[in-house]
């Protein structure tokens, strides 16, 4: 059994070497299917981050049929256990690894270095190697649009966000949400509760209730994988929205919309590059323009004239003529964040560690 695996591995390695030497297309996929493995830290449900990633593999299965073999490993704790499991799946002959959490970075990078014939895609990291691409979504582009809608739906002028951890990715979504709301109602305020956990449904619900008690009447569920916040908001009759995948079925009346992610265009292009032997590691920071970020399930109660404006803004974001982070932007402490006319670059956005004016909760240091 071991011999067989080793021989298969050597054959594949040789084939890739050959492909590299020829520098062109190599259809060794006809030999045996390309093994694609997705590793995610949480259990995969009908909604959430893991669901969005695994659902994005479906179009690849449909397009390539039996030329690919997709394995999904869920509920894998970050740390040594994840390293062991990722090494095992590569040793089993899988040549395409999608490491679906920031915490897998070091282990996945080692695998990429040791196995030049393996392609690794890694979620929300910063390390790059020739066969190692970090990927992240420009969620802030979508949360800006939902901020515009939230401002129109809010009666109290107070919005809220239940957020997991104060990391740049989540800070930017809150900032863009606030800026979008201010574009419609300039003096709107946003309160944030950091639950300091990626996964604690009970605490997330308590946090949502705490915000509702403070008269926030649109709540942004910022990076929760379960409908904890969304269903609490439906019960309380306040609007809510979330990231990654639609939770409309948990809040039929008060679901404002979803900043959905569809990774399939990116996954598909990467698989094609891998098969063609032209894969190059890069920083894949993808948004509305790449059709990775899409706002779906807009609430029909949003006024039609505002909806037209939102769609116009979305089109401008897609063609690059508008960015939520174009100055003048004032920081929450009153100092200048972005000068008038200047636009934050991608590296500046991924390192953002301050709140814009209008976010009333101080940022944890």
């Amino acid at each position, binding site marked *: 059994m071991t011999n067989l695996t080793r021989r298969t591995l050597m054959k594949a390695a040789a084939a890739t070497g050959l492909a590299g030497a020829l520098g062109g297309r190599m259809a060794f996929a006809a030999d045996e299917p390309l093994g694609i493995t997705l590793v995610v830290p949480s259990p995969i449900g009908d909604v959430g981050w893991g669901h969005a990633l695994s659902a994005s593999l479906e179009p690849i299965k449909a397009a390539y049929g039996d030329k690919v073999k997709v394995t999904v490993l869920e509920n894998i704790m970050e740390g040594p256990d994840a390293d062991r499991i990722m090494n095992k799946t590569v040793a089993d002959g899988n040549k395409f690894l999608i490491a679906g959490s920031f915490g897998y970075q070091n282990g996945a990078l080692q695998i990429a270095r040791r196995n030049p014939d393996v392609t690794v895609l890694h979620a929300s990291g910063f390390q790059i190697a020739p066969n190692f691409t970090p990927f992240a979504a420009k969620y802030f582009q979508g949360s800006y649009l939902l901020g515009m809608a939230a401002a129109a739906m809010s009666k109290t002028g107070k919005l809220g966000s239940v957020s997991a951890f104060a990391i740049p990715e989540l800070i930017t979504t809150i900032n863009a949400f606030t800026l979008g709301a201010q574009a419609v109602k300039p003096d709107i305020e946003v309160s944030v*509760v*950091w639950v*300091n956990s990626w996964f604690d449904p*009970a605490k997330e619900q308590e946090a949502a*209730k*705490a915000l509702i008690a*403070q008269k*926030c009447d649109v709540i942004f569920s910022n990076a929760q994988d379960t409908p904890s916040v969304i269903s609490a908001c439906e019960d309380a009759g306040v609007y809510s929205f979330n990231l990654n995948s639609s939770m409309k079925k948990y809040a039929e009346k008060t679901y404002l919309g979803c900043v959905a992610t569809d990774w399939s265009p990116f996954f598909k292009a990467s698989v094609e590059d891998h098969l063609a032997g032209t894969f190059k590691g890069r920083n894949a920071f993808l948004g509305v323009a790449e059709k990775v970020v899409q706002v779906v399930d807009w609430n029909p109660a949003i006024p039609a004239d505002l909806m037209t404006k939102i769609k116009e803004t979305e089109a401008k974001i897609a063609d690059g003529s508008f960015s939520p982070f174009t100055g003048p932007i004032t920081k929450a402490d009153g100092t200048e964040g972005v000068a008038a006319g200047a636009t934050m670059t991608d590296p500046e956005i991924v390192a953002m560690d301050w709140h814009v004016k209008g976010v009333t909760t*101080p940022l944890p240091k």
Partner: protein
Amino acid sequence: MNAIEFILAGMLAAATPFLLAALGELVVERAGVLNLGVEGLMAVGAVIAFIIVYHGGGHFLGFIAAGFASAALSLIFALIALGFRANQVATGLAIGILGQGLSALFGKTYESLTVKGLPKIAIPGLSDLPVVGGLFAQDIVVWLSLLATLAIWATFAFTKTGLVIRAVGENPKAAHAIGYPVIGVRVAAVAFGGMMAGFAGAYASVIYTPLWADGMIAGRGWIAIALVVFGTWLTGRIFLGACLFGAVSLMSLAAQATGLDLPSQLLSSLPYLVTILVLGIISADRRLLKLNGVASLGEPFER
């Protein structure tokens, strides 16, 4: 509703999962057994109750089934730790891990589904009071768990059953010598503790946060065990600790929502700090601590 009203209204419900599990563990430890599997027992109760409520069985049946399921799992603990006299710490940990695994297995197809919670029952008059009114509108399980607290306190304070459990925990040899079935009492206590943990899990998954997600107990079983120790095995102090923990966790969220300028990491750790501090201060008397502690805790009994 301001922050104080929010905390008062939510405090008891937030405390209930801790309270139910800790009351169960209190009885177990009073009988001289240390069951560290509470987290897993809660997870099993949570998933069983969720499945039954999801399929329309109702909350009552869900709680009953959760109690039975967790009691059954705790009886496996009893068989290994009391029957075969294995190390209680190791057995408890193993049963806890088994419970979490089982809950993930049973709950696989129910991941991220939701159910409806229960309506609140208000005490007429009191619930209309300003500020504190919210305290008197709670769901039925909160009221029942307050009754359970009273009942367990009364059992240990006034009844022979309470004395027998304590005797078995303090000096099993003496209890055996005067004719009490030590193992029998301990097995019953473990089953009771399992049932209470099952109720606690059920409360978490079908009333407090009416959804199922693998890992949703998120360490609450461990906090319940800690409450028993920091509450020095006294019912009143455990109740106080659970309420305090619930109130301070809500306070830390409300403080952020109001925009208080304190780091959220500090606020998140506040429930632990305050509970340890308060219970530490009220049980600072070493002599009393020794008096309340269970002498044979965790020791296997041999005739």
